[in-house]
């Protein structure tokens, strides 16, 4: 085995171009387990931990460019005011030890349907910045997941960053598991209200072959909010509308039975999480001090 240790991003891209089979290694949460347990013996490891840019983030034009290796601990502690949904998701990742090393790039690279960040990325409207020596492209996150543990990266590409719009409204995230720490999600749900565009976005984890959005639920809720003038008035949501939203989210699932849960439970639980997170988010939206001046 060869251990490639690029000192910067250009070197990393050159190494990946020269050795497309090299396995990128950063926080080690998934790759090291496969090595330790003898499940994988790649010819080359491509260690990205010395690439400084991957550990940095910057904010410009209402968007955060989050380096692929910014650890979840940092997202929780420093970025909650800009990316509340992703910060909530980060809190549910594994343990403090793992959150000190692991970042969003690893979740995306592995592309497990159970990756904790995915529902928050979907709900926020994230784009993945993929780069190679050929150039850089931005992939909407919902197009990034192409199958169970498969993603849209070309063999010579690496994940440089994730671009997320700064939250323009409340965001929520909830996850079901047997305890708070060290849990692979039974299912997870992310929700973001986008008052600026009067839209709602969702993300479902661990309940389909890939992380998915509940498109029909999003459209339904946007219609209800518009027709009822909820965005203008801050009026509470009818329980029947919340129930229909939950049912449509559950219907967007395509779950399986496995060691963590039955498919039936997953579908049910996603509906419950959808209803709860919607209630929390809408209440937070209504409670904004600057909202609904002169509202009826």
């Amino acid at each position, binding site marked *: 085995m*060869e251990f490639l240790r690029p000192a910067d991003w250009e070197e990393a891209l050159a190494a990946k171009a020269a050795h497309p089979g090299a396995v990128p290694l950063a926080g080690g949460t998934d790759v*090291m387990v496969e090595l330790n347990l003898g499940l994988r013996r790649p010819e080359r490891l491509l260690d990205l931990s010395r690439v400084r840019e991957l550990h940095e983030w910057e904010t410009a034009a209402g968007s955060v460019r989050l380096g692929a290796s910014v650890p979840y601990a940092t997202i929780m502690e420093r970025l909650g005011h800009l990316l509340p949904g992703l910060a909530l998701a980060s809190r549910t990742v594994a343990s403090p030890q793992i959150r000190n090393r692991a970042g969003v790039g690893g979740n995306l690279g592995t592309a497990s349907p159970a990756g904790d960040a995915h529902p928050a990325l979907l709900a926020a409207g994230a784009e993945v910045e993929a780069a190679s020596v050929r150039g850089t492209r931005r992939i909407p996150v919902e197009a990034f997941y192409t199958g169970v543990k498969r993603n849209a990266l070309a063999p010579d590409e690496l994940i440089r960053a994730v671009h997320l719009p700064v939250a323009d409204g409340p965001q929520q995230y909830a996850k079901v598991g047997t305890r708070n720490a060290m849990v692979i999600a039974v299912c997870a749900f992310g929700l973001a209200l986008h008052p600026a565009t009067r839209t709602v976005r969702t993300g479902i984890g661990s309940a389909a072959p890939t992380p998915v959005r509940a498109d029909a639920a999003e459209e339904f809720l946007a219609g209800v909010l518009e027709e009822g003038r909820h965005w203008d008035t801050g009026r509470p949501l009818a329980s029947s509308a919340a129930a229909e939203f939950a049912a449509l989210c559950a219907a967007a699932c395509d779950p399986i039975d496995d060691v963590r849960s039955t498919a039936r439970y997953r579908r049910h639980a996603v509906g419950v999480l959808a209803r709860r997170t919607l209630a929390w988010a809408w209440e937070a939206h209504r409670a904004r001090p600057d909202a609904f001046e002169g509202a009826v």
Partner: protein
Amino acid sequence: MHVALTVNGRPLRAEDVWEGESLLYVLRERLGLPGSKNACEQGECGSCTVRLDGAPVCACLVAAGQAEGSEVVTVEGLADGEELAPVQRAFLDAGAVQCGFCTPGLLVAADALLRRRPAPADEDIREALAGNLCRCTGYETIMDAVRLAAARRSEGA
């Protein structure tokens, strides 16, 4: 390959390291520091917790080559010579050790917590130790030990 790093303040060099090897293996098998325990090898149990450049991490999930040039503190580095570290003394006094296998990882995690947060609330302690499994104590005496270490620290300050 070889890996040069600083462990518990001493510059060390490990030779003949396999490229797919973990920092944990290097510490235990090549540098003669078996305090960090090898149990799950998948980041689930926290027995191998060390501080890597200040932050607690699972040594089993760090590739040896990633630790090149870094500063590592293991459980062997907590005591000051023969003088136990405050968390070590507190674990003994509170009866937080039974079989002892998880203890090194818990000590490093608890020590890291108290460095960051000298007067932690119970929720802080639970959160900080959430990645460390103990199958003997039921955790209550471990909670007692961390509270005791924090209390002694504030009295001493």
